């Protein structure tokens, strides 16, 4: 290094260089700290956790009633709010709706602002590839989704298990635990890829939120209307929200095998959506903006 640069305080990195894959963790950490600094995130998270508090109290009440009055506890089971896998599935599905709102905020902050204000170029000018950037951002969005869907569901599952008289609950209902994690993975994967694809093409907050919500709300309505018109249940595959729910049923082991659309068809549609989203992301994420 020339002596002038040394005098200016510049020096080469003398530590051990690590794999650029470590930058993925740094991107996730920065993204989460960026989003958690905003008071709006905590407001939305608080709104999202209202449903969790309701379920948390209900499970506690149920556990108390099991000890005091078993008949009444069986009556409460009819509401599917405890014990059975359906209760957790419904809980996560409702939470996913709230997560969609949170993601509109996260999408504009984590992806949209990077595209708009040159953050992406900054990241890609470092010693990392665009795949590291993409995976880092996808993991950041997935973390936000998991924070509001999978983590609260796992807490409810553990709560119900530890409030019972022994740990047999976990052994007898291990499938519920697997179902929660499986459905959580489906929600996190599909929503993060889809949000990234939308945000990288429509980075501004307002159009991003409109497009993001439009995909879920209107495609569901379109699928139902086309099913009514054609009498073909496969049109329901257009409803991505319900596709994810169907995958949730599959993860919990409660998906009916004789009903159209089948689990395989749903998997194919969701894989197609994920592949198209990934292609749109890879096409758009570039270190240098190409202008004509």
């Amino acid at each position, binding site marked *: 290094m020339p002596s002038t640069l040394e005098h200016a305080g510049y020096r080469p990195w003398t530590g051990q260089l690590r794999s650029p894959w470590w930058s993925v963790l740094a991107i996730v950490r920065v993204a989460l700290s960026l989003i958690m600094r905003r008071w709006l995130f905590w407001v939305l998270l608080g709104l999202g956790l209202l449903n969790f508090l309701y379920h948390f109290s209900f499970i506690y009440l149920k556990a108390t009633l099991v000890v005091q009055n078993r008949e009444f506890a069986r009556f409460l089971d009819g509401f599917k709010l405890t014990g059975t896998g359906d209760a957790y599935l419904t809980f996560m599905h409702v939470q996913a709706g709230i997560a969609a709102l949170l993601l509109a*905020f996260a999408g504009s902050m984590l992806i949209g602002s990077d595209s708009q204000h040159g953050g992406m170029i900054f990241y890609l000018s470092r010693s990392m590839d665009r795949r590291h950037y993409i995976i880092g951002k996808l993991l950041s969005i997935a973390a936000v989704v998991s924070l509001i869907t999978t983590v609260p569901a796992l807490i409810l599952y553990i709560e119900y298990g530890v409030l019972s008289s022994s740990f047999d609950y976990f052994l007898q209902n291990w499938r519920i635990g697997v179902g929660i994690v499986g459905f959580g993975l489906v929600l996190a994967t599909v929503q993060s890829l889809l949000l990234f694809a939308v945000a990288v093409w429509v980075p*501004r907050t307002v*159009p991003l939120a*409109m497009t993001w919500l439009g995909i879920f709300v209107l495609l569901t309505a*379109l699928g139902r*209307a086309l099913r009514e*018109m054609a009498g073909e249940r496969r049109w329901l595959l257009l409803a991505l929200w319900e596709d994810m729910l169907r995958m949730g049923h599959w993860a919990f082991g409660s998906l009916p095998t004789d009903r159209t659309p089948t689990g395989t068809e749903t998997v194919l549609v969701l894989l197609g959506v994920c592949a198209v989203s990934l292609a749109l992301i890879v096409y758009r994420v570039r270190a240098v903006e190409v202008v004509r």
Partner: protein
Amino acid sequence: MSVVDSNLPAQQTFSVMRTVRACVFLFRLTLWRQIASRQTLVNFGLTTLCALIVAAWSHRGHRTAMGFSDYMLLPTFIGFLMPIFAISYGSSTIGGEREDQSLIYLLVTPIPRAAIYLTKAIAVGVLVALWSGGALTLLCWLAGEPGQKLLLVYLPASLLGGLMYASVFLLLGAMFRHGTILSLAYWFFLEVLLLQMPGTVKRITVSYYIHCMLYDAGSSFKLGPRNDADREMFAGISGDSAAIVLVFSILGLMTLGSYAFSKREYTELG
């Protein structure tokens, strides 16, 4: 000095005229910027999707005005499209200028801040009314006879509802940095939650008054809650009262917005 005094009324008139002309220019500029934005493209896309949904519904064998209202207009237009139009223009009119850091250029002009807000509110109102009225007319036309019957029932509620939503979202955009997300949280979460609650708490939602106007105007088509329990749960008021509440709320929100915009210090603009 005496010369200046004698010309004072003329100078004031000149100043007022200049402000009016500046406001007209700002109105046209706001209108143009919003029309030429990505929101317009997304609005076109979403309206096309809704039109496809209604076109698919219109191929059913048995179609009634009540069915069209319950399964098409209420969930897709009143529940989604109309608030989306309001968010797309309401939140982004001032919120977008803050995001682009261009609000400062507007604030350094000699136009009073209240006039800026009111001008922008009128421009947003015009756009939202045009989009709501246009989309509703298109959907009703696509639905055939049931739609044509319901067009006049839905039109006043849609226009007033759209303007009310736009006023709320414009105010949120002017007051908060992330006004769009707050608008979404209000519409997507609080409105849905409160409207399903019993009692009078739902009276703080916009959609409650829109539904009251619709049910009152569409009573001849049997629009409204189906049974006594639902009616008691909804606890509706008359359509006229709902319209009066909406009109006064719009005026109140515009006044509050112009006051808040005048007093707000936008520190993030540097």
